[in-house]
């Protein structure tokens, strides 16, 4: 049965205050910024964010006061470096204190894979001797029962909801995504439910013509949203390029709280939805089109 709803409905029905939310799990590309903006518009509170890099998505949510904790390996602005809102929250508690659960890209990937496998933890040798495990506080030190060597045990992470942007999905939620996956599939399979935001909703036959492209199956998906341009300013392979300057503009505009509030008023609360946002971008949006070259044929 069709799960197609508006983004506002999907966020309202599947992301309660206090929920743990994984997003931006492909690292720099395919960040579902439209969902980030909708979370801010709906004034969500006490979210536990999960994502390895997430670019400025986490910075915005922190600045808007939606966030109680972040589980991540890196948080800031990939183009400009530091994220002002993340700094203000951590250094001054503005707009509120945020608890950080430090990870590396590998340990967060292992935590989500453990969640996807239904395993309690995964054992690893990364970060032995790093201060990250102590700062994180959820890992356990152990020695291998096979050879006695030191190990870190990374406990499973199971998000309440994973928000996943992709090129196309069917109405049931079978989603095709190509380009880098990062930790997206683990985050989707580990989650209680998944919100799929597709550039286009297509017929089941399109999905079934290439089942190897499916990143998450319908049985994991709670809502499907059709929304072109959902990832701007991040890129979506075969659709549009990254808007580098937009990240620099955000960096310059958000140096102080009033500047951040002006930026949110202009780009988030000042627009009702992504369609209006894209109209506001106007020619700048059109200029980002990057249709790409077709993949070599595969037959099934």
């Amino acid at each position, binding site marked *: 049965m069709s799960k197609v709803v508006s983004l506002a409905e999907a966020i309202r029905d599947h992301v309660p205050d206090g929920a743990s939310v994984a997003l931006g799990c492909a690292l720099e590309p395919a960040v579902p910024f439209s969902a980030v903006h909708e979370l801010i518009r709906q004034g969500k509170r006490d979210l536990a964010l999960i994502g390895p890099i997430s670019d400025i998505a986490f910075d915005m949510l922190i600045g808007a006061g939606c966030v109680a904790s972040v589980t991540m*390996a890196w948080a800031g602005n990939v183009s400009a470096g530091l994220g002002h809102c993340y700094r203000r929250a951590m*250094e001054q508690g503005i707009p509120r204190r945020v608890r950080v659960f*430090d990870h*590396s*890209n590998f340990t967060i990937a292992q935590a989500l894979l453990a969640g996807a496998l239904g395993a309690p933890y995964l054992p*690893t*040798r990364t970060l032995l001797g790093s201060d990250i495990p102590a*700062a994180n506080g959820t890992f356990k030190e152990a020695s291998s029962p096979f050879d006695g060597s030191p190990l870190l045990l990374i406990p499973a992470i199971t998000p309440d909801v994973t928000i996943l942007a992709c090129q196309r999905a069917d109405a049931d939620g079978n989603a095709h995504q190509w380009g880098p996956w990062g930790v997206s599939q683990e985050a989707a399979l580990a989650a209680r439910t998944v919100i799929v935001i597709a550039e286009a909703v297509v017929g089941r036959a399109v999905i079934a013509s290439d089942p190897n492209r499916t990143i998450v199956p319908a049985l994991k998906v709670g809502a499907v949203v059709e929304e072109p341009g959902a990832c701007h300013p991040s*890129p979506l392979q075969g659709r549009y390029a*990254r808007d580098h300057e937009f990240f620099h503009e955000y960096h310059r505009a958000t140096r102080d709280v009033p500047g951040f509030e002006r930026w949110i008023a202009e780009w988030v609360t000042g627009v009702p939805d992504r369609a209006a946002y894209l109209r506001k971008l106007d020619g700048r949006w059109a200029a980002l089109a990057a249709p790409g070259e077709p993949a070599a044929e595969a037959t099934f």
Partner: protein
Amino acid sequence: MEITAGEVMVAQAAREIADGEVVFVGMRLPLIAFVVAKRTHAPNATGLFELGVVRDTPSAELLYTMGDTPNVAGATWCARTIDLMGLLQRGDVDAGFIGGAEIDRHGNLNTTAIGADRQHPTVQLPGGGGGADIASLAKRLIVIMPHDRRRLREHVDFVTSPGYGSGSDWRRSVGLPRGGPSVLITTLGVFRFTGGEAVLESYHAHSSEADCIANTGWPLRVASEVRMTEPPSAEVLAIIREYDPEGFWTRRGES
């Protein structure tokens, strides 16, 4: 056109990649170093990018992030992050590049936070990303960062990416399977790690042994045969300037 510190650093970083090696590339100067190495002495090197991209040819255009669409077009593998981290943990990765905000003499890097209390930092840094994994698990680590007395410190506030810890065979004692920093390339010089400690190997043309010592926060060991860093060749400069014509990464005097 005057040769910048960035260009000297890129040329040196490229020399650190041997032909046929599998290397975690990263962004900024290391990305351009990979381009230089591929087009000169290391045509068979393979580049890994943490989000899951594997390339045996540099991207057609300059990249601003590893997720830029040109870095995916023409890749030989779009994997999951954990597939590449698995290769790293297995020991299938020869080298990796990382930067940092702070480093100590033993190559321990801080990219997490400045200050005593991690939950209440004086300066919140973005974090380590996959750098801590590369530092933990690659066969060797190539560190690139700006040279500043406040960055090259006697002790770092937080060890995000382990170097040689307290030195000697600390890595083995904590259970790290291999690796450690082989070289530190800064805006002033090149520091080779011997016995788990950074030793000044060469100072850049625009710098000097004294500059390096004066701007380092610990008593710096200097190699007996310390020399000037070999400047980039005309060929290498041409490759750098063709790939980064605006000097976005190589002329902003900051790695």
